[in-house]
């Protein structure tokens, strides 16, 4: 291979063309193979959970079932003691109205708590629908990665939580969340977000938003249990996550998601 000459440490590398081509092609194949594996992971549930005995929670929202009553947003605030005003939400509903000219009108007055009025005249509407939003409980969440004090994390159940005692309220995570799901709690002055009603899950109850949804548009479940209702649902429906290009490993799956939704 390499033979060093005695002059000043200069080295002359001797190699054959055949060997060089062989090494180069192996390297290229490995790189391509690795990058392919990496990029297709978002189709799976991203990170492989460590403790297999615990559930790995995911959420499904069926846009066709949502009627925009705002029960979820209202119940969430009551359950988690988030003040009604100022208008910060752990979960909220957006009304999308696609007009005949192709433009999209997105409104969410008071997070949808008081219901919606259609402001676009009927004859201009191409289609209209409601999109409930909440924390995506990403498996590779950008918000937990930026925390300088380790006060936010993905729990072994796949729920993104906040350590309120150690949060310093620096707002890094609020900036980092691509879905706008975090805010600074107006009373506690620390970061706040959807916990998937962790305190309810631990008692075996459904999250408050799912408890009160009159049409059953929301569903949560254990993604690791291949017989669970949520996995069955994901098998039978074409679901999509928001912003898959960001590779956040989102575990909030939308059924009947329109391309207009951001």
């Amino acid at each position, binding site marked *: 291979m390499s033979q060093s000459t005695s002059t000043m440490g200069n080295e002359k590398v001797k190699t054959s063309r055949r060997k060089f081509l062989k090494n180069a092609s192996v390297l290229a194949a490995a790189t391509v193979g690795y990058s392919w594996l990496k990029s297709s992971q978002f189709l799976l549930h991203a990170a492989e959970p460590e403790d297999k005995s615990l559930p790995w929670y995911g959420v499904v929202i069926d846009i066709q079932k949502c009627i925009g009553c705002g029960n979820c947003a209202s119940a969430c605030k009551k359950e988690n003691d988030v003040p009604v005003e100022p208008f910060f939400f752990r979960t909220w509903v957006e009304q999308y109205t696609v007009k005949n000219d192709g433009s999209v009108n997105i409104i969410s007055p008071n997070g949808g708590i008081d219901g919606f009025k259609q402001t676009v005249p009927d004859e201009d509407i191409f289609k*209209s629908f409601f999109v409930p939003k909440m924390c995506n409980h990403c498996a590779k969440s950008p918000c937990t990665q930026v925390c300088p004090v*380790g006060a936010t994390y993905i729990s072994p159940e796949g729920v993104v*939580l906040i350590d309120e005692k*150690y949060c310093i309220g620096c707002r890094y995570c609020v900036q980092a969340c691509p879905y706008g799901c975090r805010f600074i709690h107006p009373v506690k002055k620390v970061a706040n977000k959807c916990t998937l009603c962790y305190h309810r899950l631990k008692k075996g109850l459904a999250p408050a938003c799912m408890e*009160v949804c009159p049409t059953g548009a929301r569903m949560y479940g254990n993604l690791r249990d291949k017989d669970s209702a949520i996995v069955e649902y994901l098998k039978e429906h074409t679901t999509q996550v928001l912003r898959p290009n960001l590779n956040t490993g989102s575990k909030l799956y939308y059924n009947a998601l329109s391309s207009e939704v951001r």
Partner: protein
Amino acid sequence: MKFYLPPQIPRLAIAFGIFISLFLVLRHFLVPDTFGEYGHYRAASMIDNAKPELHYAGQDACFKCHQDIQDKKSQDVHVDIHCESCHGPGEKHVISSKVGDIFRPSGSREVCGKCHALYVGKVKSTIAQVDLAKHNIGKNCIECHNPHQPWEMKK
């Protein structure tokens, strides 16, 4: 050749030793107990997150007493709507059993209309919708419909 240790090395080593031990002592007191048990966070924080009190009791808690409503609801289209969907948070009422501790919706056109008002964005198969501008004007929904059993018409 005799090994020669420069005199500043032991001094530096002592200084380093002091700083490192100081760091370790500080670290011992500053790092929270359960930090790093599962990852770069305080594992006890999960216990904190599980602590908050309930406000919504869940439907099963309601049916422990209100068996009659469960029977009524199970016969009609509101079967899948949980009690607290309309009645609001019920944990307080579950504990006290007082009538005043639970919200009683009025059954007005606004209350029912929040879900049932005709709207272009709602899928028809998902929910029955009425045009509030035309449907029995001046009457409250509850005058004809029983909210627990909406198609069992009154009178």
